[in-house]
């Protein structure tokens, strides 16, 4: 029989550093498996959006996907636990929580037939808007993009006092152009890549929420790989994600610089304004817990976060 081919889809554009790291990872798989496991990558969303990738994994056309945590939330809402707004103050705090929560998340995915090969990082989500803003009240006055399809999440934004406009991703640019929406939130890399910032050239330096990613493989496909080879493949995959992590954090910084050069204005959010944002989110924690995120996961997230703050001296934001 020929080599085992693992087809993997990702939204990462062809030639991007995420794609490059995945290609290197494929080379490593080939090396450690003696050429018996071959990774074939479909970059740039050619295999569809993340929900389509998961569906193709289910029917067996694809075996793996490098996907964001928001995509994984299609499989299990526990993944929203990693993306609670204003929960994390720094990269270190987030890493601490994710490292402790990941066994639980990996177990939930495994119950659904998916194995996590590695965890990645897509950067911090910030608000971008047509007008300058620093306080929550200013953002609440604007029409905010929200992805269509997640009904409870839209409801939650409404309860928090925002004016969410549920539309699809392709409507963001025309929406900003025509005033259907005034604001959106995204990582710097995405805001630059899709050129959304050009029409919403005001950003606040508020870290709203982290966005994580993971490489997952179909459990049946994983078990077709000989048992003794799996730990080696897992190891080189985790090495790849460590390389990617450094790369992504650099790239988001570079994206910020590129946007500022092209007219993005960044306003500073003072500690008192930041406290307003935090209070607003904390006021609706009862609605998030249980409705959006399973209660046990939400409690774990808060426990680990507080644990980190207790052992590492408070919610001090790391230097940017």
């Amino acid at each position, binding site marked *: 029989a020929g080599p085992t081919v693992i*087809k993997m889809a990702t939204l990462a*554009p*062809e*030639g991007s550093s995420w794609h490059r790291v995945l290609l290197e990872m494929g080379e490593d798989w080939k090396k450690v498996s003696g050429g018996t496991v071959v990774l*074939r990558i*479909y*970059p*740039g*969303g*050619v*295999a*569809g*959006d993340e929900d*389509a990738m*998961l*569906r*193709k994994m*289910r*029917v*067996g*056309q694809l075996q793996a996907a490098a996907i964001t945590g928001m995509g994984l939330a*299609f*499989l299990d809402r526990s993944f929203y636990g990693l993306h609670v707004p204003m929960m994390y103050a720094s990269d270190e705090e987030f890493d601490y929580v994710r490292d402790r929560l990941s066994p639980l998340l990996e177990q939930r995915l495994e119950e*659904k037939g998916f194995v996590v090969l590695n965890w990645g990082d897509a950067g911090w989500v910030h608000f971008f808007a047509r007008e300058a803003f620093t306080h929550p009240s200013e953002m609440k006055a604007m029409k905010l993009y929200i992805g*269509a*399809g997640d*009904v*409870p999440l*839209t*409801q939650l*934004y*409404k309860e928090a006092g925002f*004016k*969410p*406009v*549920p*539309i*699809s*991703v*392709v*409507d963001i*640019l*025309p*929406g900003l*152009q*025509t*005033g*259907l929406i005034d604001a959106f939130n995204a990582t710097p890399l995405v805001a630059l*890549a*899709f*050129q959304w910032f*050009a*029409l919403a050239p005001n950003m606040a330096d508020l870290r709203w929420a982290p966005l994580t990613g993971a490489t997952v493989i179909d459990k049946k496909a994983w078990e077709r790989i000989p048992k003794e080879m799996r730990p080696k493949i897992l190891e080189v995959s985790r090495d790849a994600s460590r390389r990617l992590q450094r790369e992504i954090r650099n790239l988001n910084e570079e994206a910020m610089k590129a946007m500022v050069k092209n007219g993005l204005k960044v306003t500073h959010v003072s500690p008192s304004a930041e406290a307003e944002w935090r209070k607003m989110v904390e006021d609706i924690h009862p609605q998030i817990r249980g409705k959006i995120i399973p209660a046990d996961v939400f409690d774990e997230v808060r426990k680990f976060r507080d644990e980190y703050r207790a052992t590492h001296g408070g919610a001090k934001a790391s230097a940017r």
Partner: protein
Amino acid sequence: MTAAGEAMDAPAGSVPGGGARSFLDKIENAVSIFLLCGMAALPLAEVVGRKLWRTGIPGSTTFVQHATLWIGFLGGALAARDGRHLSLGRLSDRLPARFRGAGTCFFSAVSAAITLILAWAGVRMVLLERAGGSLLMPYLPGWVSQSVIPAGFGLIAWRLIRHSSPSWSGRAATGAGTAAAVVFLSSGLLLRPAPFAVSLILLLSAVVLGGPLFVGLGGLAVIFFLHADVPIASIPVEIYRLVTSPTLPTIPLFTFAGYLLTTGNVSRRLVRFFRALVGWMPGAIAVVTVLVCSFFTTFTGASGVTIIALGGILLPALLAERYPEKFSLGLLTASGSLGLLFPPCLPVILYAVVAGIAVDQMFLGGLLPGVLLVTIVAAWAVRGGKRAGTRRTPFSLGELGAAAWEAKWDLLLPVIVLLGIFGGFATMVEAASITVLYAFCVEVFVQRDIDLRRQFPEAGAESARLVGGFLILLAAATGLTGYLVDAGVPQAIFEWVRATIHSKYAFLLILNGFLLVVGCLMHIFSAIVVVVPIIAPLAAAFDIHPVHLGIIFLANLELGFLMPPVGMNLFLSAYRFDRSLGEVTRSVIPFLLILLLGVLAITYVPALSTILLPG
């Protein structure tokens, strides 16, 4: 190829079983009309709701996307019921009488077998989705909505068998043939080269003899996936993804609006107005046709609805001015995708998004090339008008005023749409449903041209049939695209180009040829998403400006809509005007040639695309 060209036939007219007679027929019609109305009403409620209670209607976008899926498959079954699926032609009708029945049974059996396998693939997907357990919205699992895919294919297969023969013995023979073909295809034999080749030959013969075109495209997908040993449930997954994509609901909505407008007397009122306005110029109505079509395409995102929505108004207008029929058909078909480069046309935005270029840059770059293409066709139209010695009307201010007053509600429609979009009230889909509501109110309550009990359901059922026939074809083509992507075919082509082509001009020439084929075969949005990431780095290596590349890309796709044998405008035109594909193709050739000159100018004169760009 001449034989096949000669054999290209109009969609078969009404066949036994056509018309809404049985109880099932009535239910099917009613559900389609209900869905169309729901699709039109919900985005409107969303627009209003957003003003009143800030978030609009929870889940309305999801509903509208899935209603498109249902309309597509129910309409596809309606089209099969009424014998309205497009085919290359019925070569079997030209066989000697004693073979005719056998020929029809053969192509029907192969078609039914392919359709049944597509239905089975749909069942597989639905079962796996059900096990996965994802919800579309609270209490509504995704698999419930997806079930319409296998149900629709199953119903189409049954109707293909039923229509294969007037006698039950003939139908039994087709049924037996279908069973044999299903067994052969699903036996695993296709993994080997010889049975694989045989299956391709059988499929080709069935399509040439008269099988529906969607069977040809979907059959290729089925056979290739089976040969490559990739699960065929991938095909419905791909179909589901495409048919529920966010902008696709504009197609059924604008189609419905178009049928409402054409059932009313809009065409008479508009023609009177435009004749009063510019009828004194030679070729004026043709120029008006070009401008109105470009304008409409700009708003409907080159989704192909221009011909459907405006064709019924403009063709009689052209004929009334004594334009030759062939010229008018060609002009309307060619004008169906003009205007694709102007703001706020969706493909331009999507291109900019995928290629990572600022949208306003793309629109600036597209301005002169867009004007060039429109001017070329308009000039040709004036020339045609002069040669045909079309009628000219003396100008009268009084008549202009009277005509404008009579057509005031119709003339207001684009204003409403523009306000909706540029006023920041509505998305494209919402603007489409505003158009439906507006057309409905004007035709039913103001002009009273449409009778609610008789003509309104007729317009709804006709829209569903047309959209269904079209979406099933698109779905089948998507399945095939899915295979090509899975097999890495686009990448392989460009690896080859990278290795063999070294001159910029040779690259541009090959790019033109390739994009024409892409534009002819692929849905424009899939083409952008699949092809752009591959060619952008190649073009950068040849030092081609990214905006220029984008304009070349879109201009070629615009031309691809007209490209025989399977350019989308040709099908839409054949559908809308009830002409044969061969007739439409012949009428469009002069326009194809002059537009080709325009596209070559756009390709080899980069300044057209880059001179307006700042810096």
